[in-house]
């Protein structure tokens, strides 16, 4: 990590923080769905805690890397940084688009199922949580797109833009 620029270190730190926070959140979501009991209050508390944790980690990490290389941290972005940023955004946008398309498919399939499934079958319970699943699918898509953006930016910094 010693030969990395401030921006690369910043992206690496954010990538790790986002990945850890997302893993903890979505693990809980999957566990809740597996158990068949969605506790929105508990999940809300977890989301707030993870958001605060993420902000603190970001502040501390950036303060540490800025203190270790103050000259790099003070540099404003140049044309290469902007190009890599744009290319990363393009990758992230593509991943988000795929996630949104998948979620639209999920909504369409649920609507279709609701019209054919009898109200007393076990499937109705699953379908009742479809808004929860849809919201989390969108959140998951957003997270994957952010992770894809950071990974692609790191690749462009290393291999050339």
């Amino acid at each position, binding site marked *: 990590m010693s030969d990395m620029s401030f921006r690369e270190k910043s992206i690496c730190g954010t990538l790790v923080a986002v990945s850890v926070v997302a893993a903890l959140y979505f693990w809980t979501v999957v566990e809740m769905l597996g158990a068949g009991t969605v506790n929105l209050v508990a999940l809300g508390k977890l989301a707030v805690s993870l958001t605060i944790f993420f902000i603190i980690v970001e502040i501390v990490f950036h303060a540490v890397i800025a203190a270790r290389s103050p000259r*790099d941290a003070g540099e404003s972005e140049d044309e290469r940084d902007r190009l890599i940023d744009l290319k990363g955004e393009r990758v992230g946008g593509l991943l988000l688009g795929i996630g949104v398309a998948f979620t639209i498919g999920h909504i369409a399939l649920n609507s279709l199922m609701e019209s054919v499934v009898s109200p007393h079958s076990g499937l109705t319970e699953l379908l009742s949580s479809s808004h929860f699943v849809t919201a989390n699918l969108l959140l998951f898509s957003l997270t994957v797109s952010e992770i894809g953006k950071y990974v692609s930016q790191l690749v462009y910094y290393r291999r*050339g833009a």
Partner: protein
Amino acid sequence: MGKGKPRITNRIRQLRLEAGQMTQQALAERVGVTRQTVIAIENDRYSPSLEVAFRIATVFAVGLEDVFSYDAASDG
């Protein structure tokens, strides 16, 4: 860039040495880019914009083609 043989190569490292061992940081400050970008250009990992290319040539007081060369043969 980043794949195969680079089509745009440069002599920046050599020109820096000829200009009294100019550092990458000093060149970066005079051109208005980061040191990392100068490193990327020198290593053929990034082709700068025309404006930055002209600024680099101006720093060394040479023509653009004395700094950068284009391998037209790789166009096929």
